[in-house]
């Protein structure tokens, strides 16, 4: 692998649970992200999947330096960005941008679309150098018309708003774009359009995506490599096809077995793995392997020794003592 564009090493973020009105004290900690490591190569789309509350979005906010890390390091282009502040952090914004999940909340309702898309240019003193033209160009790029610049966000549909968010993220010519569930708030009909737009922009500008989603079908469509998260930890990382065809971790296998198959014949034959119980509270995650409380393969060792995220077969790390491929979800008709 070439020099990664972004390397995350052992990211940790715990949020305190506060009690009391006058004397606020931390009574517990939510282990939102607990030792997450990954590398993103230039030009690839790196997916992060997991159910709600597994820490995906916190990873996105950590990478964007919107919240401070408790532990771990972030390296971008060989430069340590874990603790950069002030001017250096502002410079970092030129390289990394984010597209938010909720297109209704991520645009300031009091600003015109032109002001929203042009704001990054104002902040980085790029406005005088053809700012209005750049705004027009960006709107055109994401499939909106230049006249839309004078309108307000509430005049647009969800899909169009997400396009505005994308235009804002692209204004500074970033290398890495963090996509935090960019399509999960959209109608299915809009999803494909936005995903195609993202793909098109990636080809045109050589963008690298950190693509966060809970939707395996979306991840399968857009990602080159995928990390699966469970309760604040990465349990498996693999190339897209390797993950979907030969998942090693029982949690990943359970997730994949739950993807509906459009063909009703095959759908009927689908062999689902149904996990028991709920996700344990991230305030008090299970000891050792965090998945052992729900795992269909759990043995005594899983409650005592935490499995390392280590290579199982060629470049396919999984954190499980009993990692091995499962028989296909549907028997091939042969």
């Amino acid at each position: 692998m070439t020099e990664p564009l972004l390397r995350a090493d052992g990211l940790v973020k715990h949020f305190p649970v506060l009690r009391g009105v006058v004397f606020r004290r931390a009574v517990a900690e939510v282990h939102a992200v607990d030792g997450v490591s990954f590398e993103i190569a230039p030009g690839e789309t790196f997916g992060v999947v997991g159910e709600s509350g597994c820490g995906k979005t916190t990873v996105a906010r950590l990478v964007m330096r919107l919240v401070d890390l408790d532990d771990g390091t972030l390296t971008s282009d060989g430069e340590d960005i874990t603790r950069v502040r002030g001017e250096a952090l502002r410079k970092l914004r030129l390289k990394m941008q984010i597209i938010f999940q909720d297109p209704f909340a991520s645009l300031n309702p009091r600003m015109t679309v032109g002001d929203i898309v042009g704001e990054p240019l104002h902040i980085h003193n790029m406005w005088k150098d053809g700012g209005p033209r750049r705004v027009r160009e960006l709107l055109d790029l994401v499939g909106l018309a230049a006249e839309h610049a004078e309108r307000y966000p509430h005049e647009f549909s969800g899909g169009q708003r997400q396009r505005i968010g994308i235009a804002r993220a692209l204004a500074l010519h970033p290398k890495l774009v963090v996509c935090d569930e960019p399509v999960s708030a959209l109608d299915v009909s809009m999803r494909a359009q936005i995903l195609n737009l993202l793909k098109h922009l990636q080809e045109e500008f050589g963008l690298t995506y950190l693509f966060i989603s809970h939707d395996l079908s979306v991840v399968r469509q857009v990602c080159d490599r995928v990390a699966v998260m469970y309760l604040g930890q990465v349990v498996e990382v693999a190339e897209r096809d390797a993950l979907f065809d030969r998942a090693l971790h029982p949690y990943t296998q359970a997730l994949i077995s739950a993807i509906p198959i459009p063909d009703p014949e095959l759908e009927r034959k689908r062999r689902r793995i149904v996990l028991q119980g709920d996700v344990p509270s991230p305030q008090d995650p299970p000891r050792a392997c965090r998945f052992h409380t729900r795992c269909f393969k759990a043995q005594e060792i899983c409650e005592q020794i935490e499995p390392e995220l280590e290579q199982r077969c060629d470049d396919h790390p999984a954190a499980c003592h009993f990692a091995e491929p499962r028989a296909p979800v549907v028997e091939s008709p042969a």
Partner: protein
Amino acid sequence: MTDDIKSAHHPEIGELEIAAAELPDDTLARMGLDAVGASQWRIVWRRLLRHRLAIASFGILVLLGVIAVFANVFAPHGYATQYLSQQLRSPGAGHWLGTDTLGRDELSRLIYGGRISLAVGFGVALSAGVIGTIVGSLAGFYGGRLDTLLMRVTDLFLSIPLLVILIVAATLLGGSVLDIVIVLSIFFWMPLARIVRGSFLSLREKEFVEAARSVGASNFRIIVRHMLPNAIGPIIVNVTLAVAEAILIESVLSFLGFGIQPPTPTWGNMLAESRDLATTAPWLVWFPGLCILLTVLCVNFLGDGLRDAFDPTQDLIKR
């Protein structure tokens, strides 16, 4: 792909295009991108113009202000001139609004009184508005210890009885309009500070604030460009209410011996002096009361219009 987007237009956008078609040609021409930013205030102004009641109120307030400033031109008599043979005349020729117990012309006194009342009303509302907004913004935006500190200071000010301070101030300060504005401002900013803090606490968690941060916006920019515009509604309502309150409190000040002393008239002290005459000479109660009422109503309507004009989600065609 562009075709897909056009077909995905919301119905509202179609309606807005119709609304835009009613605008004069030059406005449409100016709606091009070259006007981004500078046009923001023009948009607010244009929206305010559509709010008839607000514009009428604005006109009345300007008129009241002009009359007060040029009181010596407009007033038919001096505010302290006594016509000893014409005490307690009811409204009629010669003295259009009647005279008071000392035979002074009521109309002239109202005109001169407007100077102080309007200056105190608007001065206190604006300066208390600025203090309250700044304190509330800082507390709500930064949170933590600064928030605790500022909010305890706010509580402290709320807990001091106004009258005690006024009596102390009366002995320490003179009674100029500026003194009154300063003393009253110190006691008018707390409710607004709490309101602004509250809306900032909720705005702070909004995704668009995080989005602004992720494109590199400074704290100052986030407060001024992203959070304040979204908190403008409650601020305007609170400031407009403060205008009325300040005009009335000013009369209490005079009563306590601080502030404007007789014979200089203010609407507040004219109202206070005429309390006992409400049955014998009711016009002495009516007219200062009506002046205060008119001012307060106009300020409230104007505030309403401003709030709507600042809110782009409001219906454009509001009358």
